[in-house]
């Protein structure tokens, strides 16, 4: 593993910064803590936490003990407990749910077989950085035919150990298994570290079904540069649900490689860009086999000079037959200062395909506001109602407790946006 880390670090040093997407010029790689020991917990006091973060905790109703933890100042609250019961429950079904370092120790053969098989370190600069410096994340193994009856919430696991900046997640869903994995939370994660470069690798075997839900709300000084990819085998199903709210700049394009016949993929992406933020999110699907299908739905909202971009790829290789793809990207612009872009790319090398792509940009219409005003809603309430309606198709895919927090958070961000 050390050799691999060193190789990856070498590659990271050689690789130039990406010249596209978000502006990353402000990152200083020498000013980053590459490893924080879980015991270095209390470093800051509650008073150092910025006021806007405290306000957000207040508004979305985060319990007091949890607030301190999320702000990185308190000790862990009961997430350790929840993690243990979750782990036990998973264990009863034979599901392995561990920190990747533990995973490497206890299941070395499995771990080494799959680690880096989906995202090799030479994939991109930040995947190399992650491979060199990884700590924290999750290692999940779902045995053949096991259907996990409740979602695995990484939130509790990661909370129990303090969040890493270079998380590495490896999930293996064996034949016929079923898993829903949730990471992140809507409460703002306050971190003084300025970069979060995670890698998520997922292997979905024959007839397995996997859903990976992310709700990310990093504080506004974080560069969130994540590589997420999954390989899907015969008749398997992979679903990414991706919500991006926080961070200074996000570059994240969950991808699905449909490798065998009958594989299906779906990506639902939501981005909310506010003041000073650039959400460069998107989706990639590569159809490598016949009878495969995929659906991409992307919704973005830009306000207060925020910029949201959709960057996507749909690729169909020669000889793949009966392939269908549907891509929909909708953007909502809330004021004159904001910006939205769409950069989809479609590389189709087979003719037995049905490819549809649609994108639209709109703003809140006068008549919508007028109608809601007539029903007694204030301009602010009306606007947030329209936004909630716009993102609803994605929000309804997110577990209820997260969705409720998400809606409250968006209301909060939009507060005072009407002049």
């Amino acid at each position, binding site marked *: 593993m050390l050799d691999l880390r060193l190789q990856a670090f070498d590659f990271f040093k050689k690789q130039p910064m990406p010249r596209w997407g978000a502006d990353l010029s402000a990152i200083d790689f020498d000013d980053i803590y590459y490893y924080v020991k879980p015991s270095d917990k209390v470093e800051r006091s509650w008073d150092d936490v910025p006021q806007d973060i405290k306000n957000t905790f207040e508004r979305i109703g985060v319990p007091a003990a949890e607030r301190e933890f999320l702000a990185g100042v308190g000790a862990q609250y009961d997430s350790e407990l929840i993690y243990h019961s979750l782990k036990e429950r998973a264990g009863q079904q034979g599901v392995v749910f561990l920190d990747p370092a533990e995973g490497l120790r206890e299941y070395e053969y499995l771990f080494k077989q799959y680690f880096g098989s989906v995202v090799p370190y030479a994939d991109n600069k930040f995947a190399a950085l992650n491979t060199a410096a990884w700590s924290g994340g999750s290692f999940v193994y779902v045995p053949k035919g096991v259907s996990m009856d409740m979602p695995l919430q990484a939130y509790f696991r990661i909370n129990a150990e303090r969040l890493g900046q270079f998380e590495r997640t490896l999930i293996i869903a064996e034949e016929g298994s079923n898993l829903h994995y949730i990471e992140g939370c809507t409460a703002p994660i306050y971190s003084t570290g300025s970069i979060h470069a995670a890698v998520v690798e997922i292997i979905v075997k024959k007839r397995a079904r996997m859903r990976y839900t992310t709700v990310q709300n990093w504080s506004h000084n974080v560069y969130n540069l994540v590589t997420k990819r999954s390989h899907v085998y015969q008749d398997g199903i992979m679903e990414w649900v991706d919500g991006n709210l926080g961070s200074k700049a996000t570059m994240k394009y969950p991808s699905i490689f449909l490798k065998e016949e009958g594989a299906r993929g779906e990506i639902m992406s939501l981005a909310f860009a506010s003041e000073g933020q650039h959400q460069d999110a998107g989706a990639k699907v590569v159809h490598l086999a016949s009878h495969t299908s995929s659906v991409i739905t992307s919704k973005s909202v830009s306000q207060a000079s925020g910029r949201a971009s959709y960057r996507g790829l749909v690729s169909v290789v*020669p000889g793949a037959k009966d392939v269908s793809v549907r891509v929909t990207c909708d953007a909502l612009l809330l004021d004159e200062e904001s910006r939205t872009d769409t950069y989809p790319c479609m590389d189709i090398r087979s003719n037995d395909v049905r490819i549809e792509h649609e994108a639209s940009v709109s703003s809140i219409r006068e008549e919508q506001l007028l109608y809601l005003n007539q029903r007694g809603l204030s301009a602010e309430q009306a606007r947030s109602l329209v936004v909630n309606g716009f993102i609803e198709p994605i929000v309804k895919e997110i577990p209820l407790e997260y969705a409720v927090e998400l809606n409250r958070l968006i209301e909060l961000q939009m507060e005072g946006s009407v002049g």
Partner: protein
Amino acid sequence: MPITVKTNQHAEQVFELQSCGAKQAHEIHVEKNGTFKGVALLWDMRDCDVSFVIDLDEGAETELYALVAGSARERGSLLVRMNHRGVRSKGRASIKAVLAESAQLRFTGMIQIQKQAQKAQSYLREDVLLLSEHARSWGKPQLEIEANNVCASHGSTVGRMDNKQLQYLASRGISEEQGKKMIVEGFAGSVLEHIKDEKIKDKLLADVNCHLAGAHRPPSAKPGN
């Protein structure tokens, strides 16, 4: 050569771009309240690199219809960029491509709406009909929107000939070959209908059909090798 449509003027142009074999940049500037309509036909697109950049001032309107027909081992690229610089400008572009044999088309579309271009409306559409399993379509329809009170969207489809349509035509006694020809003509029709002169239209359609059927091909380039 740049085209400028003066204030309140209207201009129309048909671009016949067969075997152009090189870089061809068309810059069109539509001044205040001017209107421009362009119809572009691109076939035998060997190494063609054609671009249309249309700048739209206040109240300016443009329509652009393009038909691309490729066959043999032709590789071509087409770029359409509508740059909305003024308020209430309107743009509409529709690109249809029919690719046979091992033809490859690289299409880049861009709708840019600048900050000051409020109330702009823009739509870009690309439809690709792939007649052979070796044909390849690469498409990148993009949007860069900096004004909020606008209507901008794009749509794009890629597919092959619908067997159901062929079956329907067969049931009406139309041979497969003829049926395919009719479907291509129907597909291309939405571009060709913008050419007023019937004679030119018929000639162009015949040229496109011929080209797809493999005439015009230099003896050295046999299909599929």
